[in-house]
């Protein structure tokens, strides 16, 4: 009895020191980001690892019971097993939130702010508009368009009454 205990101690020491025997370099440290992570995703239904990694004693006993016939599991036990493996159900992970209201509000706010910026620019940045934009020039422009019969069938000149020199009613 004592001899087997001593032997198991020696073998444990052998395993733990075998790493150090490899020229003193050992094994590379495994970074957290390189390990499999748990995720709830609709398009990827089965994550790499279970949600609960360290089981409580009753969870361990439940896992043992799971190895037998599943008919003997009650509904609560089935749900408990589910919650060990998964964090959120599909219904929970797919439910919408009210985030869209904030997003929409933010978008409208910044569009409004952009409008103010544009107004300020129009006043303080841009130079004056060309002289051809005043009423007299525009009237001459329109008269010339009518003289040239621009779009006489369905468009501009079609709406002008050439006999009475006015817009058609």
């Amino acid at each position, binding site marked *: 009895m004592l001899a087997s205990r001593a032997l198991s101690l020696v073998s444990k020491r052998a395993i733990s020191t075998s790493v150090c025997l490899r020229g003193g370099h050992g094994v590379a440290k495994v970074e957290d980001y390189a390990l499999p992570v748990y995720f709830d995703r609709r398009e990827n239904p089965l994550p790499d690892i279970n949600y609960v990694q360290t089981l409580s004693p009753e969870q361990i006993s439940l896992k043992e019971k799971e190895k037998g016939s599943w008919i003997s599991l009650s509904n609560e036990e089935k749900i408990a097993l589910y919650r060990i493996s998964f964090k959120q159900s599909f219904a929970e992970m797919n439910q919408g939130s009210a985030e869209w209201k904030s997003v929409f509000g933010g978008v409208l706010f910044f569009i409004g702010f952009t409008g103010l910026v544009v107004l300020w620019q129009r006043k303080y940045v841009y130079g004056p508009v060309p002289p051809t934009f005043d009423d007299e020039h525009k009237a001459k422009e329109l008269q010339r368009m009518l*003289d*040239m*019969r621009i779009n006489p*069938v*369905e468009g501009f000149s*079609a709406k002008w009454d*050439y006999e009475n020199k006015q817009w058609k009613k």
Partner: protein
Amino acid sequence: MSLPKPVMRGLLGKRLRFHLPIAFTLSLAAAIAFKYTVTEPRKQAYADFYKQYDATKEFNAMREAGIFESVRPSGE
């Protein structure tokens, strides 16, 4: 906890059988509506315009307005 097993197959076929006839009908309706609200009136407008169109009269009116560079108004 005995939920009915959800439908696992034929989902795309079911969706297509529902949506494709609707899509075809609506597209056809849009085309017909466009034909009879836009293209037919447009063809009629052009026909009516050219029925009473006197090219020489229009040309002389344009000439008098002074828009041409090759032919000046008759006064000058």
